[in-house]
Every structure is written in structure tokens, then in C-alpha cells.
């Protein structure tokens, strides 16, 4: 069965819809949303509604640090993202905030672990930015597969014969054999705010039975998403980042 892995949507409805359509067209039957539904983008409400609808149908949904900041207030966000979180806090309904508050930080299902940041201490929001950090995450997850977001670039870490992790930059569209006797930590990339100078939305498809993982980049109407950010009075830098993929 194919599972779509989507993370860091950040209020970008156009990007989310493009990825959901892309995944369904390729036969995805399950969906896992790895957190950060709000912040940066202009469609916090519509994105949370979409995710809640999938959750009702059995999708995996996790909390990200931006989602947590809606209830707790954000300490270490920069000015633009603080402004966008403030705006989201005012925009979201009580039900929507309650939905975000109730989300879990980590879910293990059989041989798969889903988490927004790292399985080591999900509430600390550590970045998996090195093979050593990936190794700690895999150890804490205790599963063959750990699927994460938080870092916006797509990376696949894999265990070598000595039990250490190596880093691999995946090629979009190539199905990578990921045999379960090794441990794998996949950073699936950001749907709503990619930062590698390519504005196309990022997500991944996991085939548990076939033990294959495919990373994708999906082009979408980034200009429309950026225009919405400008129209609702959020900092222009956020619109620019979406358009440019930075």
C-alpha cells in the first residue's frame, strides 16, 4: 500500500492540493501529515480543515512546532514567522485550535515511526541535519523506517554496515529500494515552503509492501499562494520566499 508523506505545509493550500492530487493520481491510499500546518502561509484555516478531513478518514496527523506555537506562543521564531503565527492565531476557529492542540508528537505503527522533528525528544524540535542526528533519531525510533519533516530539504539517511548513518540526496521520481533490514531516516521535504531555490512542492510516497520510497517535486501555482500572503497583510518576505523557493 502506498502512503503519502507530507510535511511542513505552512498554510499553503495550493501546494497541499497539488501534492494530494499528485499522490492520489499515483495510487496513494494512506496519508501521513507530519506537522507544521500553519505559519508563513495565508491559508491556515483551509489547510487545517483539509488535514482534519483526512484525519477523520484515518490519516496519520502529527503536531509540528508551528502548530504548538498557536497554543503556547512562539519564543524562538523570527519576526516574519511570529507575525504569521499571530495572524493564524487570530484567524483559526476554536475547533481548529483544539484540533491542533490535541495532535500527538510521535506515532509508531509496526516498523514505521512518524515524527515532525526527531524521535529522540519530539518536544525539543531538534533538527536532523547530520548523519549523527539521524542515527540518534533511528535509535530512538526503534523502527526500520523513521519519516520526519522540520528540515525543509529532502534527504534520505541510511544505515551502513557499521551501523552508522550515511546521507543521500534523492533524485525526484526515482523509486529507491529501502529494504527493512537496514534502518532509514527520511526527511520528506516541505510541501508549502521549499528552501532549495526550487519553488516546487516536496513530498514522498512510501510503498511498505514493495519496500520502496520515492521523493517527488510537484509544480503548483506558487504565484497565487504568494499573492494571498500579500493580500492578507503578512510580511512580503514570506510571499517572496514561496515564489522563489528560498
Amino acid at each position, binding site marked *: 500500500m502506498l502512503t503519502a508523506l507530507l510535511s511542513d505545509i505552512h498554510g499553503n493550500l495550493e501546494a497541499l492540493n497539488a501534492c494530494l492530487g499528485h499522490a492520489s493520481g499515483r495510487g496513494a491510499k494512506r496519508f501521513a501529515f507530519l506537522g507544521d500546518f500553519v505559519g508563513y502561509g495565508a491559508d491556515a484555516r483551509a489547510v487545517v480543515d483539509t488535514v482534519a478531513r483526512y484525519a477523520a478518514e484515518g490519516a496519520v496527523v502529527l503536531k509540528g512546532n508551528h502548530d504548538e506555537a498557536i497554543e503556547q506562543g512562539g519564543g524562538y521564531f523570527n519576526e516574519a514567522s511570529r507575525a504569521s503565527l499571530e495572524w493564524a492565531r487570530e484567524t483559526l476557529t476554536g475547533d481548529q485550535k483544539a484540533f491542533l492542540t490535541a495532535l500527538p508528537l510521535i506515532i509508531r505503527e*509496526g*516498523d514505521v515511526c512518524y515524527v515532525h522533528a526527531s524521535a529522540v525528544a519530539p518536544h525539543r524540535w531538534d533538527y536532523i541535519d547530520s548523519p549523527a542526528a539521524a542515527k540518534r533519531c533511528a535509535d530512538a525510533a526503534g523502527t*526500520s523506517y523513521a519519516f520526519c519533516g522540520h528540515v525543509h530539504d529532502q534527504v*534520505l539517511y*541510511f544505515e*551502513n*554496515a*557499521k551501523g*552508522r548513518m*550515511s546521507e*543521500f540526496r534523492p*533524485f525526484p521520481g*526515482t523509486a*529507491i*529500494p529501502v*529494504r*527493512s*533490514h537496514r534502518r532509514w531516516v527520511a526527511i520528506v521535504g516541505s510541501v508549502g515552503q521549499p528552501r532549495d531555490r526550487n519553488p516546487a512542492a516536496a513530498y514522498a510516497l512510501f510503498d*511498505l509492501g514493495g519496500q520502496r520510497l520515492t521523493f517527488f517535486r510537484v509544480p503548483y501555482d506558487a504565484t497565487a499562494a504568494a499573492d494571498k500572503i500579500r493580500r492578507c497583510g503578512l510580511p512580503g518576505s514570506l510571499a517572496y520566499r514561496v515564489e522563489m523557493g528560498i
Partner: protein
Amino acid sequence: MRTATPGPMSTMREELRSGGVIGGYHLGQCIHQGGTGSIYRASAPADNDPGFPIVLKAPYLGRGESAIGIIGLEMEQMILARLDGAHVPHFVAAGDVRASPYVVMEWIDGESLAKTMTHAPLAPEEVARIGAALADAIHSIHCQDVIHLDIKPENFLLRPTGEAVLLDFGFARHARYPDLLAEEKEFAAGSAAYVSPEQLQHDRSDPRSDLFALGVLLYELATGAQPFGQPETLTGMRDRLWRRPAPPRALNLDVPPWLQEIVLRCLEPAADARYQSAAHIAFDLRHPEQVALSGRASETQPLGVMAQAGRWWRQRRRDVALAPSTRSAGGRVPVIMVAVDTEHPDDDRHPALQAATRQLVSLYPELRLMCISVVRAAPLGEGSDELDTRTGRHLEHKMRLRHWVEPLGFPPSRVSLHVIEGANAGGTLLDLARANHVDLIVLGAPGASERALAWWRSVASNVTANARCSVHVVRVPERRTEMEPDSA
């Protein structure tokens, strides 16, 4: 899901024998016992018959065995399953790496190159014929994003048809898959006699490593000796980072200069100084008369101590200056074929074709340009004039071809000129393109002589429709005066 299979390892070892059954496959005769595993003829379950003979390959297992056998099998399962074509065995099935590691593939009817090698030195024509077949096989996997990294006689089979088949992808690397061997430094190098300088420096990402190993094979076929011997230590192997081996002609004077040129170019320590594509090696081996000879081509003595010391010193400096970033472009190094009509040297399409060729070749830092002229066969028994004889006509057209390509300012090592007689220009171009791994054909749109014909009968349309590569059709823009009157 982790599936606990009780005692899979012990079961596996018992079954790995003639008469045993693994994954439903009945094992027949053992045809190979290597350092890390063995290969058996096998028969498939009736409901799963691939329709051709097969073998099953399994690594040795257990505490005493090196992990390389099992990782190698995992790599082979991943990579062989993605490879196509006549130069690799068809992949059939694979067993779970943990519970029952094996891979089932097509059995190839052929003779091992190791056996051929026992007859070396071979005649130069034979070296060229076999070498071109080996280069074809390497080119075929390189085009599929795979580097073999363990090219040696034992890993080539030669089919009765002359085609070469590459075996054992346990050390191989697929450019779009994680490299499970990347950090296994003690395993990452291939076999001592054939391993490339890059692999000795722990770089497994350069396709030109396979071209170095091919150079060792060519050397061995031509002389019966290995250029760097069989060093047993890493220091011994690192010699090849700078040392130029004795020229083949120092060991066997029958080796012609063109073959020596090809072999020594393959064996350059710096990958940038080697051939950049296996297709170019195949081309040179098939067209000895087109090989541009440098000074090393006719040497018959090994380099003196001072010259070798100079190479050692330059290699040290290269290491410092270039570190790991000079990796091959990875992009394709194309063979481009341009069809030139030398029977009509005044045709107004020539400047346009030259301009287009100049533009296209400027896109690549390295390439091979084949200039072809297909001329009509000389009428039999006509005239005694030099120009009318077959050789005379051939020479005349070759001169026109050289005159055509000269303004492009290419070094002779990158250009080859071919005048071919044939009534069917399109078919001739297509055959040549196929035989020489051509990536792009450049030719003119139908000219005055063809304009009366329907487009589909022209050479350009035939080539465009039937080529296996890209085709660039060059048209001379119509002059304004010829435009429809009411469009002004």
C-alpha cells in the same frame, strides 16, 4: 515489518548445494565458487518459469564470512533489477537479504574473458574486436546510470555472437540510489590489478574508473602482461596514481601505435586525461585509421626515472590542487554525427549546417564528431582518369569533408571523417549511428534535389523517423523576397 525467521542462516547453508532448493528454485550444477559466494545452474518452479535458462547466486553466510558478500548481494539485487539490454543478464528474482539472500538471473551462454586472456597476447585486430565489444557493454550500463567498479576478466562473458556481457554488480554503483558501499573503505576498491586511481582515493562516483580498468584489460590482451602487476599492498596499488606503465610496444612490438595510443590514454592517472566515454573507445577500436596519434603511440621504452619522478611530482600537486571536486561532469559525453553532402559542395545548406554544428558542439566540453558523406557508388568500368577510379573518388570526397569541418577548428583527436558508398543514404546513416553509439545526428532538411519529393521520402524524414537517438534537422531560412506577397 521485521519478520522473524527461525534459524534462516543454517537452513540456507544446508540448501546451498546441488540438489538443494532455495526460494522454490532447484539447484543444479555449481558453476562458480568465488571468494564471497557461489553460483548454481537452477530451474524455476513451473508456475514461475522465465522462459530462459537461469542461475542462482548466493553468498556464503556465517560468522567467519565477510560482510561484503551480503552487502554485495544487496547491491546486485538493487542494481541488476534496474538494468536492461543485451550486455547484462536478465534479472529474475531476489530473496530477502536477511532470511534467504540470493539472486536469480539469466544464464549466459558464453566464454569467460578470463579464458580468452590465457591466450594473450592476441593479434591487434582481435584485441580491437574484443575490446570494442567490452566497451559497448560498459557504455550500455553507463547510459543506465550504473558504474561497475569491478571490471576484470572474470566479470565478462563473450557470447558466441561476439557481444560482451557484464557480470557481478556487487561492487557497482547506481547514480540515483544510495551507495551502500560508500563508507566501507576496506571494501570499496575492486581488484588489485584493475582498480582505478579514483577508487583507491575512495571515490566511487566516476564512470571513468571503468575506462581505466578497460585500459588494463586491453593492455593485458595486447601484451599478455598486466600494466601494474598484481600488487598485494595498498602502497603497491597507489603506484598507478602517477606511474606510466611500460608502453605495450616495449613488451610486444606487434602492438601497432594506434592500439598503444588507445591503451595508454585509458590508463592516464588523471581521469580528465583519459577517454571520457566508453563509446569513444569503442569508436577508436573500430576505426584504427582515425586514431590521432601522440608521441606516446610509438614509444618502445618505459619512461626514464626522471620522467616518472616528474609524473609523481605532478600527481602530488594535482592532489593538492584538485582534491575531490574535479569529478567527471557525469553528464553525457556525446558522439555527434553530421551528414555532409560532399557531392554538392556549393549547396546553400552547407553554411547553415556548419553554423548549427558549431553551436551544438559548443554545448559540450568533450565530444566526438563523426563527419559522414554518403556518396553514390562509382559506375563500374567508367573512365581511367584518377578522379573516376574508386580510390580517387573516395579521396576527393574525404578532402571535401576535411575542408568542410576545418573551419570549426576541432583538434583531430575529436573528429573523424568517413566517406561511404551507398545508394540509400538514410539507411547508411542509421546503421552507422547505431554501430557507433551516436547520441545526435545533424543533417540538412531536404534540398533542391529532394524538394520535388514528398517529405516522407527524403533522407531527413527517414532518419528522423527511424533513428534511435535525437536528430537535428537544419533548414536554411527562406529569404524575405521569397515570402508570400500578402504577408508583408
